[in-house]
């Protein structure tokens, strides 16, 4: 007699956006597993066509309230590639500083409010706060620092408006940045303490042969620039992304999924990939911490993404402090450019992973085509692959326990479903 089980998580919680997970088992075999992303399509690419290229950073920032800077950075770098503009020196440093703000804000929120409750067995950050108020307060303070950077550099903490093609609309005064230094000195130590805390959690034993993919740079922990590297040794310019990575539609998701063109296989983006590929480029305090915490190199346990994410908070504070201390505004806020027909692509590292943008522009400065490939849609098929491999060890548990374990795995990716909409409910059906 066959036994069928269907497990449903109707609404995945503590993730950004809305989606569901549906798992159907027959005699312990997975018959069907779908990460359903049902948020409606956003259609941003079509909305951009015909608009002035200068509008793109502010429009794409609206794709996400958590990682708007990533959209601004990928868009301006792609447009600057199309226009033949290269942003260097002080402006480049300020862009990295702005990105540090977003990494701190997004990572601190995810680690403390969304992911730690999984490891300490709380239903929510609110329940966590009852027993761990100091740690939750710390997380909120770290998040606030990130928001402060976005506020000062981006004009406001949510959907910043100061990023321009060629640089910024306005440069901050030196004192606007130097007054942040005491808070960031406190934050660096607090971030180190937070990383030590999460590294002491119990982690499920689950290792996969991931294909790690991230932007890399020889001289710095990559954020905005550098070739796209993979753990099997491929290194390509961002301009070749679409030749090596393919988006594909699946019936159960409003987000496109992605695979590598050459292997047809899934790949992993995000903090774990970045640390594995770029560990040598971590700044000293972050690198010492990764060693102190005995984070494997490479680490193939997705649940340990929380450690990687916490180390990246330290990295972001360390880099931010360096830029804050050395900032001496001297030049113009943005580089002048002439409109010209062209096409450009860029990949930058959003908190959740590589974010690819490509734009075509005409001689009048209007967008003729746009393609945006967010990290969560690229990770979506990898999440499904992980769940297929993780589930067999869970099948002797109750439906509720299976659903919780699956949600926990999904949350390790810090998915941003609204960005990908492109996610989350878990559905587990037993039919016998």
């Amino acid at each position: 007699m066959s036994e069928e089980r269907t497990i449903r998580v109707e609404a995945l919680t503590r993730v950004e956006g809305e989606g569901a997970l549906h798992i159907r088992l027959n005699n312990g075999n997975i018959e069907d597993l779908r990460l359903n992303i049902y948020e409606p399509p956003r259609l941003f690419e079509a909305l951009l066509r015909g608009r002035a290229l200068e509008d793109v950073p502010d429009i794409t920032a609206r794709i996400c309230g958590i990682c708007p800077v990533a959209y601004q950075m990928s868009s301006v770098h792609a447009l600057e590639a199309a226009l033949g503009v290269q942003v260097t020196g002080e402006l480049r440093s300020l862009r990295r500083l702005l990105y540090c703000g977003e990494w701190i804000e997004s990572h601190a929120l995810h680690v403390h409010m969304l992911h730690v409750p999984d490891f300490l067995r709380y239903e929510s950050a609110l329940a966590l706060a009852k027993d761990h108020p100091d740690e939750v307060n710390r997380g909120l303070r770290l998040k606030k620092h990130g928001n402060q950077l976005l506020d000062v550099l981006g004009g406001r903490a949510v959907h910043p408006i100061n990023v321009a093609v060629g640089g910024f609309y306005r440069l901050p005064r030196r004192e606007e940045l130097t007054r942040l230094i005491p808070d960031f000195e406190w934050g660096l130590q607090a971030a180190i303490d937070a990383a030590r805390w999460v590294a002491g959690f119990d982690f499920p034993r689950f290792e996969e042969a991931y294909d790690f993919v991230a932007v890399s740079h020889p001289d710095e922990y990559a954020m905005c620039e550098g070739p796209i590297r993979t753990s099997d040794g491929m290194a390509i310019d961002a301009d070749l992304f679409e030749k090596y990575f393919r988006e594909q539609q699946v019936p159960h998701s409003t987000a496109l999924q992605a695979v590598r063109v050459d292997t047809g296989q899934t790949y992993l983006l995000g903090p774990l990939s970045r640390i594995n590929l770029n560990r040598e480029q971590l700044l000293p305090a972050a690198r010492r911490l990764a060693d102190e915490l005995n984070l494997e190199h490479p680490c193939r346990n997705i649940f340990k993404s929380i450690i990687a994410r916490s180390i990246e908070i330290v990295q972001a504070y360390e880099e931010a402090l360096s830029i804050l201390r050395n900032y001496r505004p001297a030049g113009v806020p943005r580089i002048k450019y002439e409109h010209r027909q062209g096409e450009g692509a860029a990949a930058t590292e959003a908190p959740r992973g590589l974010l690819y943008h490509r734009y075509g522009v005409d001689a009048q400065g209007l967008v003729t085509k746009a393609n945006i490939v967010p990290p969560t849609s690229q990770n979506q098929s990898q999440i499904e692959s992980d769940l297929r491999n993780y589930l067999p060890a869970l099948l002797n548990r109750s439906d509720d326990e299976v659903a919780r374990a699956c949600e926990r795995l999904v949350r390790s990716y810090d998915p941003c479903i609204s960005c990908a909409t492109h996610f989350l409910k878990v559905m587990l059906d037993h039919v016998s």
Partner: protein
Amino acid sequence: MSASRLFVGIGSPHGDDRVGWEIARRLSRRKSSSLVVRSACTPAELLDWLEEIDILDICDAVASNEPGSLLCWSWPAAEIERAPFRGTHDMTLQAALMLAAELKRLPRCTRIWGVGIKPPISGDALSPEVAAAIPNVVDRLCEALHHA
């Protein structure tokens, strides 16, 4: 020493959901030296602003059959849990306030003002009913803030 007071208007650029922002904008024109006025896209932003605040007033849109009506609750109030605040904010206003209370960060006096709006929300402008009610809402808020 006078108490530190914070007013936060929560909203979005969408139709009547922007009423919290509009009220914050008008209050900032009239503000007294001890009143800080802010606008927020999400309730979670509140958590960044509560240090050394004694009195907190929050204004958000609330679904109602009487557009432009003004409701007020003092925290803690059981009915707030059931209040039909709408929005796609990542943390509900109730959750943000409960977290702040749990972390002992909530000011000693916290009031929530709800301005009635009638869903569905569309466009980017206020409806005539809500727009017409705003001056009176602002006057009532100023009066209440003055006496807090």
